[in-house]
């Protein structure tokens, strides 16, 4: 019956280059639109950051993708399988942590994984030991989960993902509760998972972690994806920032404002902070220097500030205090 059609469909569907693909996805909670017409494309085999401020709808999108809650409109697919139509086939190769991982506290970590492995394919049971070892809690695997720290439960959550030998991992704030060493371990693990050909979608508000771990990101704000793409390309589109240490900063500011460079200048404790529109040629930096020197300003230091994901994130989200 359906099993006869699965292989053909599967072969066809897995040709999709996207691990996650959504079109016009909408999820409402009453009047609140938690996921607003989301168009998301996550390529296979990369670490993909899903960034957004608190309440932006990150977790809701993951819950919709996993079928934990229903979408109100739109289409989506995981690993090429349309969801929810072929949800069982899609989730067979997906591992996920959503919110804080919680387990049966009266059972050991290993027993909790046995319950989850029983719901997966028979081979999943054989992966319990290696998964526990990989996340570094093999020694505590036979302790009750009620005795685990938050960080250990996070690790157990990742182990729960790994027993399904997933092609796609959706990790919602996996760094929560981890100490610095644990965060470094998690970062390393994500990198190694990607190196094995898996796709990792990392939902987080820890911009630094995402920047260090991920190849590409999507920025979500108020339920809507406002930017997405490779980090390097996105940052290339960020504003060019300069820090200038000079004499008479107020007069220097007036001199720059008088030019037609289109720079936004602020006077701060460290001197002038200059923002130039994205795509401004680097010659403009020399031009600014020339204007200042010819205006009799002593320039002690002129430094280009490397655009960070954080500064770019603040630019593109509505949480930077921009007028509503």
């Amino acid at each position, binding site marked *: 019956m359906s099993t006869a059609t699965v292989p053909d469909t599967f072969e066809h569907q897995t040709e999709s280059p996207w691990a996650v693909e959504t079109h016009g996805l909408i999820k409402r909670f009453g009047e609140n639109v938690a996921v607003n017409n989301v168009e998301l494309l996550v390529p296979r085999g990369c670490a993909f950051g899903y960034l957004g401020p608190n309440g932006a709808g990150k977790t809701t999108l993951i819950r919709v993708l996993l079928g934990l809650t229903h979408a109100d409109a739109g289409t989506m697919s995981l690993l090429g399988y349309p969801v929810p139509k072929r949800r069982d086939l899609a989730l067979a190769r997906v591992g996920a942590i959503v*919110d804080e991982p919680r387990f049966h506290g*009266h059972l050991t970590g290993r027993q909790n994984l046995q319950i989850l492995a029983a*719901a*997966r394919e028979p081979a999943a*049971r054989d992966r319990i030991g290696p998964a526990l070892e990989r996340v570094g809690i093999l020694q505590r695997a036979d302790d009750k989960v009620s005795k685990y720290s938050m960080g250990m439960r996070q690790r157990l959550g990742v182990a729960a993902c790994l027993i399904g030998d997933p092609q796609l991992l959706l990790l919602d704030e996996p760094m929560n509760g981890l100490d610095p060493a644990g965060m470094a371990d998690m970062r390393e693990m994500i990198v190694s998972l990607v190196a094995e*050909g898996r796709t990792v979608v990392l939902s987080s508000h820890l911009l630094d972690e995402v920047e260090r771990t991920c190849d590409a990101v999507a920025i979500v704000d108020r339920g809507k994806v406002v930017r997405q793409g490779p980090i390097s390309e996105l940052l290339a589109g960020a504003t060019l920032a300069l820090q200038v240490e000079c004499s008479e900063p107020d007069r220097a500011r007036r001199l720059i404002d008088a030019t037609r460079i289109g720079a936004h200048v602020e006077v701060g404790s460290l001197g002038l902070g200059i923002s130039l529109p994205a795509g401004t040629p680097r010659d403009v930096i020399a031009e600014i220097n020339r204007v200042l020197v010819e205006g009799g300003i002593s320039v002690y230091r002129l430094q280009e500030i490397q655009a960070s994901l954080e500064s770019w994130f603040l630019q593109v989200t509505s949480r930077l205090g921009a007028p509503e």
Partner: protein
Amino acid sequence: MRTPAHTAASVATVQDTAPRDHRGSPIPTGAMIATRFMELRKRRGLMIALILVNIGIPTVFLVVRLLAHAIAPQSYGPAGGYSIYTGLVAGVMYVFGFIVAATLGCTAGSVDLTEGMFRHLVVTGRSRLALYLARIPAGLAIVVPLVAAGFIIVCSVCVFAAPTRLSYDGTNVPAGLSRAAFENWAADHPKLVICDFSFSAGPSSPVPAVINSVPCGPNGPIVKAPPGSQGPGQATVTPAQLRAAAVLIALQNYPDYSSDFLYPSDSLMIRTGLWIELEAIIGFIVGLGLASLLGQRTVPVILMVVLEIILTPLFSRARIAHLLNLQRSIVGVAMAHLTPGGLPVFGGGGGGPGGGQGNPLLVPESITWAVLVIIAWLVGWTVLGAWRMITRDA
């Protein structure tokens, strides 16, 4: 960043095929049932409580009776016997078995949700219906042996520590006599029969005149004589008259005597065992469905206890004209109609032994209707619980 083309080349270590394990199927696997069983069995506090209630209480009761009888056999009767059996099974095990099973069902139906495992399970892609159905055999694998263990203990003590002579109306009577043998025994023991057995005399009955001549101690014979029947007895009665009166009294008591036994018969124990197991299964299935529907454990447990302890006895006894069909549709009322003959009906108004079928104290209900009600409850609550589990946001 990796491009899709780049990725295709690099996917070497991860499997690129979905496992073909029919995880969309609604039928749970053996492993799912086994791990669900483990999850319930490992709840030590719950298991101890269930064992204490279902096995501990009847065991303690019987052990105390065994000890008391061993120490002072004249003051304390045997620990076992038919009356102890009927009282324990119909009054204790039937109710406690239901409550124990309902508590376990409510636990099985709610803990995945309250302890955060439901989300992990849903993410495996396994059919939610299969996840729900796996709980039924897993839970019953605990409930059925638990109830059986308590029941076997009660049966064992009631059979092996049964009295050797039947105590009927306070008189030791040989058990299992035929009508003729009972008459013969009465003729041989006229004074015991006249003084201890109850007797309902008709207006022209010669018996009151005879029995009033027998010195029976301060209480006298137990006779219900209608107005106008013969007054104080004759001065002397012959032994033949005494024997004849005793036989008449014995004949009137035989139906009651014949429903009393030294210990329960094998067939009664089998029927009773199946009956209390069915009650426990109902408790588990309904508890599971209700807890799944409500998404919590405490309130469903309270509701189940109220149903069993308050609503069922109330609706079994009181005949409310406009609510008769509603009363008949309560599973406890239906189960009361299936009470094996020889057992008193729980909540049936103290009608004494005789089973549920045709019991005049119960709201009238045919056996067919009672069976249909029970099936409807089992199916209905399973459907409701499964539906909520399928549609619930995880």
